[in-house]
């Protein structure tokens, strides 16, 4: 046992301490983790506080008052509140968490300071006969200055509201009588003005103009707005145990992510195992090792060591994913027992596939030779990758159920089905694990036979039939 652990430790360190592992495998999730944890702090670097006024030349005479009201502190706070609600609602619809959780998440409970301070803006109404160029003079003078150097109450924007924007003008191109068009209005802004603030000025001016138009037609603007708001559907999924909110995006993303994560970890580890076995053979260090440990001890140590590498990759990526979910308060998307299943199915997938890959590695002397032996194995293993969508759409289809009991691909299929939309028969989970365990035993048994013969065999690489003969022979 001690020797197996010694081999395992070397196998683990031989991969983990390389630069390519650090760069290729560790860096991406670590970077993601750093970004997620540091995001709030980074977001705290708020844009400089906007302080100044917006000048309005209102040729219609009926819009400016509404604009003044729209940029009081209270109105701006109310608008921001509403924005949060809208985002939370959209999030809750897209991924199926309840609106309150989503609201908390988006409001900045976990991303404090993500929002810049509200701007201190006032609206200065200029007389309608003001020369627009003269009104822009202040902005022109400040154009190259920083926001903080512009003086106590700099002019940040100039809005000109043409009379026709409210009253309309006869459409020159349209021959129809009474046809009216409403021209756009210009906004001139300082180059330093936050685009978000520009957007706010544009929206509020537009809204004030529309309100003025409605008023001049004798309509109640707020009533009209209420009446014209387009309702959205509230999707509910009806299941045997009741109804739950529809969560289309999460239904596809979470199980898919689980399966890909497992696939990547298993194959990263398996690939390392294949190349390290080939390296030991081609560098002829194999027999030196076999003088100290038995082939089975070596095989076991290698599989355990590289399994630890795979587990490290899996944990790292899964942990990063969890961190992201926690950061966005969406942990309830992943039931904790699914994580346990993920680990169990990873173990099953890893041990069966790695055993085969080690056997292949032991039978050849070069990586290129391994490819021809690996291709039939890969053909079987891409099945869950190719069919993940149909399996997910219908986790209880005959095809999905049959695949759950085919060794080597069943861990991947089961991970998809368990985290899929539809509950699967409870007995299938332990039953598929048993089949998986049997697959592991079969693979390890066959691999140990091939390994014992293969490791000392040099020369012409064997074909699949030869490998089968070795299994039956030894």
């Amino acid at each position, binding site marked *: 046992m001690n020797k197996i652990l*010694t081999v395992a430790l070397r196998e683990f360190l031989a991969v983990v301490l390389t630069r390519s592992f650090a760069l290729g495998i560790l860096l991406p999730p670590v970077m993601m983790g750093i970004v997620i944890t540091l995001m709030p702090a980074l977001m705290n670097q708020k844009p400089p506080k906007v302080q100044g006024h917006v000048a309005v030349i209102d040729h219609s005479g009926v819009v400016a008052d509404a604009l003044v009201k729209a940029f009081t502190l209270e109105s701006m706070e109310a608008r921001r509140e509403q924005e949060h609600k809208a985002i939370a609602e959209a999030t809750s619809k897209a991924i199926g968490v309840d609106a309150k959780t989503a609201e908390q998440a988006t409001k900045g409970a976990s991303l404090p300071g993500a929002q810049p301070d509200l701007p201190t803006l006032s609206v200065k109404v200029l007389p309608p006969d003001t020369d627009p160029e003269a009104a822009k003079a202040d902005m022109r003078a400040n154009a190259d200055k920083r926001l903080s150097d512009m003086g106590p109450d700099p002019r940040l924007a100039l809005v000109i509201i043409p009379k026709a924007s409210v009253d309309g003008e006869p459409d020159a191109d349209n021959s129809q009588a009474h046809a009216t068009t409403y021209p756009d209005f210009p906004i001139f802004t300082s180059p330093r003005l936050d685009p978000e603030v520009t957007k706010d000025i544009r929206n509020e001016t537009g809204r004030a103009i529309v309100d003025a138009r409605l008023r001049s037609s004798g309509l109640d603007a707020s009533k009209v707005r209420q009446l014209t708001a387009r309702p959205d559907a509230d999707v509910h999924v009806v299941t045997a145990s009741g109804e739950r909110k529809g969560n289309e995006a999460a239904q596809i993303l979470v199980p898919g992510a689980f399966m890909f994560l497992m696939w990547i970890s298993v194959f990263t580890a398996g690939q390392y195992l294949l190349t390290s076995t080939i*390296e030991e053979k081609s560098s002829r260090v194999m027999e*030196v090792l076999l*003088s100290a440990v038995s082939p089975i001890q070596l095989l076991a140590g290698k599989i355990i060591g590289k399994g630890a590498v795979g587990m490290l990759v899996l944990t790292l990526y899964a942990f990063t994913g969890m961190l992201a979910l926690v950061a966005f308060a969406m942990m309830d998307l992943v039931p904790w027992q699914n994580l346990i299943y993920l680990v169990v199915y990873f173990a099953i997938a890893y041990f069966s596939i790695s055993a085969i890959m080690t056997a292949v590695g032991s039978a050849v002397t070069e990586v290129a030779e391994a490819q021809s032996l690996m291709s039939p194995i890969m053909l079987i293993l891409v099945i869950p990758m190719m069919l993940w969508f149909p399996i997910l759409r219908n986790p209880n289809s005959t095809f999905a159920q049959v695949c759950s009991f085919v060794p080597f691909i069943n861990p991947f299929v089961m991970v998809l089905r368990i985290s899929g939309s539809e509950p699967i028969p409870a007995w299938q989970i332990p039953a598929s694990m048993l089949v998986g365990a049997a697959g592991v035993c079969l693979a390890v048994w066959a691999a140990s036979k091939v390994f014992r013969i293969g490791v000392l065999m040099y020369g012409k690489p064997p074909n699949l039939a030869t490998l089968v003969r070795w299994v039956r022979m030894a």
Partner: protein
Amino acid sequence: MTAAIDIKGVNKTFGPKVAVRDMSFTISQGELIGLIGRNGAGKTTTIRMVMSIIFPDSGEISVLGKRSAVESKDRIGYLPEERGLYKKMKVGVFLNYVARLKGIDGAGLDKRVRDWLERVELLGSAKKKCEELSKGMQQKVQFIASVIHEPDLIILDEPFSGLDPVNSRLLSTLVDEQHAAGRTVIFSTHQMSQAEAVCDRIIMVNDGNKVLDDTIAGIRRRHDPKTIEAEPLHAVGDDEFGALARLPGVESITRANSHLLFNLSGRESAEQVLARIVQAMPVSGIRIVRPTLEDVFIDIVTQAAKTPEERARLELITSERRGPGGSASD
């Protein structure tokens, strides 16, 4: 005392090829044995079976009193013929790893590795990657790897192959030291002169069969000298040559440059024949040519040759070796 290795009636075949046939021998503890034979004779297969890396089809092998080497792996040091190192691993780390695999652990391990590297003048390379070493240096590291755990039984498969004369001598010294420390050493080689210089006893393998198992002295005794090389003081005329050829115990004479080679019939001892030659002809020098291990080996192989063609080929080699200058030795 239990035997270091006891092999009884072992057979091993690979498909149609018989690699080892009915092999039996016993090696006592403390012996220094050479396992010699041509390439492909079955030496490495025999050693691998002793090491339990492969298993015999039939027969029994016991190693250090255990039924298989698996049970006494930590007491055996093995330098395989197919030996290598982890290219990217540092020399010190590699030796440490191998020692750990052989059950050595604890505080003394680092010092032991350092001491050994110092002995073979490689201390400066401890932190180098194995691939940065020359082939000879790598061989030395591999030798250390096979003895670092102070095994009772050391098996070296072709330890001298690829070594320059200086490193060859160093390795010989190290092997002698291990033997002097009371350890059993077996090494296989196809370079007979090496075995002849180092070993107490020789086991010779040909075509999977054991063809000879004796001490060096025993082999010399059993394989009588067949040639006397003489340097006449003056030129030998045809009459004189004929008279010499008729001396009792002489079968034929061959001229080789200024020398005469007397091929003995074997009916009388070489010493008696030598005395007669000296009486019959004034010589400036004369000696009995002892058969080397190589000569013995070729003799045995020739006798065992299955086809007339093979025998003819081997006899040609023999006659070339016995040609001008007498017996060749490596």
